[in-house]
């Protein structure tokens, strides 16, 4: 557990970066510090590993005042990931990953072995090992940055906007990989971002900071969305706060509807509803409009498909299920199981009615 107790930071020149911050960061969970640019996120993060010295207040890690721990020792026990990865350009991927073990004086063979293990752990191929950072894509560099931070298996991971320099598709992938990694490792992670979506997605606990270094609110994503403390937090969470909160609500028990389906490459039977779901080996491919392919004996081809509907899974959140229903050309959301096979459809109005009902019961 990391605790901030009345921590303030005033930079020389008078800029108040952090103002009387009190915050508890629970062990084994992801705490996200989020807020607009210049609100003191990086400063707060860097006070944890003593890269910035607080003007007043104390920070403790597992009850121990960090001011009493030698800075280099403290830092070697905390992984650190920077925005642009901050890799050493003159060292190969493997040597970058082995940095902290080398500082800790591990044997060369053990460092090599550990670095290769981590390369795989973060989803990079073995043949990247001897590349230099400038031979990697931004996403790959970021993965190496994470591997380097994890190398000596520190209990704490500090991440300063780790995914903000990559494009949205890669960012999404890196975020889900971090969540998967965290499910295995249970590190105490403090992550800084200015992206509220990222904060809500990754955080077990989210601390919203406002300019001037004040803590505006701290809580779980669901708590923040349901009960923002003030207008600033509500604004920061965005206009579609109500819709977003569906991502954290419990999923009511839904009745799945059966659906007329046809297998890709087979002719469409005569009659039936206006939209028919096309499957291939049990997996949904898209919808066809019956009146467009109604000629008897004509086979359903890939070109006939109306795509674009998102699918949701049996264990998806209400938000994903609702989105599947709303984005479907047929107006019915396609639900699949873990194997990706079609199990049934849902209707938006039914889901909303159930959510409404649950709300009334609370």
């Amino acid at each position, binding site marked *: 557990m990391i605790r901030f107790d009345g921590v303030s930071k005033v930079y020389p020149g008078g800029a108040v970066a952090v103002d009387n911050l009190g915050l508890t960061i629970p062990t084994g969970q992801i705490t996200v510090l989020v807020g607009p640019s210049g609100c003191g996120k990086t400063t707060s993060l860097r006070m944890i*590993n003593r*890269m910035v010295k607080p003007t007043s207040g104390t920070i403790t890690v597992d009850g121990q005042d960090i001011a009493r721990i030698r*800075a*280099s*020792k*403290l*830092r*070697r026990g905390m992984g*650190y990931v*920077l*925005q*642009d990865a*901050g*890799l*050493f*350009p*003159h*060292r190969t991927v493997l040597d970058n990953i082995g*940095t*902290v073990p080398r*500082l800790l004086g591990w044997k060369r063979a053990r460092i090599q072995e550990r670095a290769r293990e981590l390369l795989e752990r973060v*989803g*990079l*191929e073995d*043949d*990247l090992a001897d*590349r*230099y950072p*400038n*031979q*990697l*894509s*931004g*996403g*790959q560099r*970021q*993965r190496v940055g994470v591997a*380097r931070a994890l190398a000596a298996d520190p209990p704490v991971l*500090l991440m300063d906007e780790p995914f903000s320099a*990559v494009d949205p598709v*890669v960012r999404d*992938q*890196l975020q889900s990989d971090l969540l998967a990694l965290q499910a295995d490792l249970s590190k105490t992670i403090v992550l800084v971002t200015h992206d509220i979506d990222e904060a809500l997605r990754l955080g077990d606990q989210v601390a919203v900071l406002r300019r001037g270094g004040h803590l505006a609110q701290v809580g779980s994503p669901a708590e923040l969305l349901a009960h923002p403390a003030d207008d600033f937090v509500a604004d920061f969470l965005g206009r579609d706060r109500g819709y977003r909160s569906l991502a954290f609500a419990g999923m009511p028990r839904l009745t799945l509807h059966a659906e007329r389906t046809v297998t890709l490459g087979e002719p469409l039977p005569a009659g039936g509803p206006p939209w028919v779901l096309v499957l291939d080996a049990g997996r949904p491919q898209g919808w066809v409009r019956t009146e467009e392919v109604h000629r008897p004996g004509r086979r359903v081809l890939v070109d006939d498909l109306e795509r674009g509907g998102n699918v949701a899974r049996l264990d998806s959140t209400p938000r994903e299920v609702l989105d599947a229903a709303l984005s479907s050309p047929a107006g019915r959301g396609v639900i699949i199981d873990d194997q990706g096979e079609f199990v049934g459809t849902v209707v938006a109005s039914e889901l909303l009615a159930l959510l409404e009902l649950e709300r009334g019961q609370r």
Partner: protein
Amino acid sequence: MTWFLDHWDEVITLARQHAVLAALPLAVGFLLALPLGWAARRWRTAYPILVTASGLLYTIPSLALFVLLPLVLGTRILDPLNVVVAMTIYTVALLVRTVADALGAVPEGVRSAAVALGYRAPRRFMTVELPLAVPVLVAGLRVAAVSNVSIVSVASLIGVTQLGDLLTDGYNRAIGGELITGILACLVLALLFDVTLQGLGRLLTPWVRVEQARGRPVTKGAAA
């Protein structure tokens, strides 16, 4: 040409002396410039003072320095040490700024990554900042090396033998072949220094070559 063919062993001996008089101060001067350049980088107020002061050293006429040093050092007037010390001073004068700027060229993100991972200052300097400063350092060393080779020839005027002797002697006795040999030998020596330093720089910075060869990042491995 015939003059050179008749005296080539003498030219080689002089060239060797010339090389030592230029290279030894280059090495010593560089080692002295490292902490000074580091200090200029480390303390904001030290930079203008150190850079200006060292720059001024370079403006002292070499002959004056050669003549003054025996008085300061207590050496004999013909002692080659005078030349070595004088050349070291010039090297330091040129390299303090180079070192400071080379260290300044190390990306801030890389420096803070090193701090964040738990490097202490001395090791960070030796294994992160210095290696990354090599390209800029080599550029500065090349300038200093060529400058040394040319200034050393002035030492003939105080009787320390090296290639400059060919110039003074050739001029005094109006031997064209000797004069030209002296000039060409200095040129070749300067070129040799330059190529060696350039090669050394390339050897120490394999990652820079990779960058030039590939031009852009290679995407392979994980999708991201």
